[in-house]
């Protein structure tokens, strides 16, 4: 059982570094087992080093930094064990323009692996949609308008 865990953990660990670097433009993020010999005796820490800063435990990170780290972790898990779909409700709420842009690119990429359904109020993410729904309300009843984004091929 321990081998199965260690194998899964190592795969997620490796992917996490990769996704974190992508989302932060070169930042270094890594998972770390608190107890190397007996992983089940303790937990897993997340260390992050954003560009220009020191490596620190995730607890002290900012709201935007934590969002970016959480998204990296979600997709790191996806590499090892893809879920059939992802429901992402306003995960960009605390991101600045720079991080939202990177997130939008990453969501577009990862949607090739699993279905992604994201709610957002940000143009930069709407622009990358394969299908975009606008929801509005009339007399307390929700209505949808759909825009399927087709490649223009002449």
């Amino acid at each position, binding site marked *: 059982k321990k081998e199965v865990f260690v194998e899964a953990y190592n795969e997620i660990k490796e992917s996490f570094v990769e996704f974190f670097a992508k989302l932060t433009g070169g930042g270094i993020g890594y998972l770390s087992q608190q107890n190397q010999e007996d992983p089940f005796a303790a937990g897993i820490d997340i260390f992050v080093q954003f560009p220009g800063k020191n490596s620190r435990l995730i607890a002290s990170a900012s709201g935007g930094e934590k969002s970016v780290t959480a998204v990296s972790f979600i997709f790191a898990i996806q590499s090892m064990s893809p879920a059939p779909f992802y429901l992402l409700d306003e995960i960009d709420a605390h991101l600045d323009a720079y991080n939202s842009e990177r997130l939008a690119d990453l969501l577009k990429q990862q949607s090739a692996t699993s279905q992604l359904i994201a709610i957002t109020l940000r143009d930069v993410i709407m622009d990358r949609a*394969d299908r975009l729904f*606008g929801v509005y309300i009339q007399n307390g009843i929700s209505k949808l308008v759909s825009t399927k984004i087709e490649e223009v091929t002449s």
Partner: protein
Amino acid sequence: AYIKRVEIRGFKTFGSKKISVPLDRGFTVITGPNGSGKSNILDAIRFVLGDLSARSLRADKMSEVIFDGGRLGSSEAAKTAQISILLDNKKRQIPVDTGTVHISRKVNRRGISQYLLNGKNVSRSHLIDILSIAGLSSAGHNIVMQGTITRLTDITPVERRKLIEDLI
């Protein structure tokens, strides 16, 4: 096993006239003003996948997800809320021998739910067993509700290890 479409009727801000939401197999984005019904669509998906927690659906009891009539008044309230979902099953990830799987859930004003699998009545536990084989569930790291994205970074290291353990 992706979601091809969600059909919503009488659920929260969705009135008694059924609305069909076709989803892209790649990247679908939903936007709109505050309170327009975006998160309600995600709640509908969790509901049809068997979510038993009214609280996680922002309701006091399950019957509260039934459309209350909106501006038309409570005479126009729905008697039941019904969600249907059509899942792709070409790779037979769901242990049912059909290329697509149709799941439906209806709740009435007494809070009692009925489930249908490919049109046939099933118990919730039977449905949950089938769904979990395909990795489909109403909760999990793949479902990030509004305001909860930093949960994965705020959980304790031990909770984080357990999350990974539960995946294998």
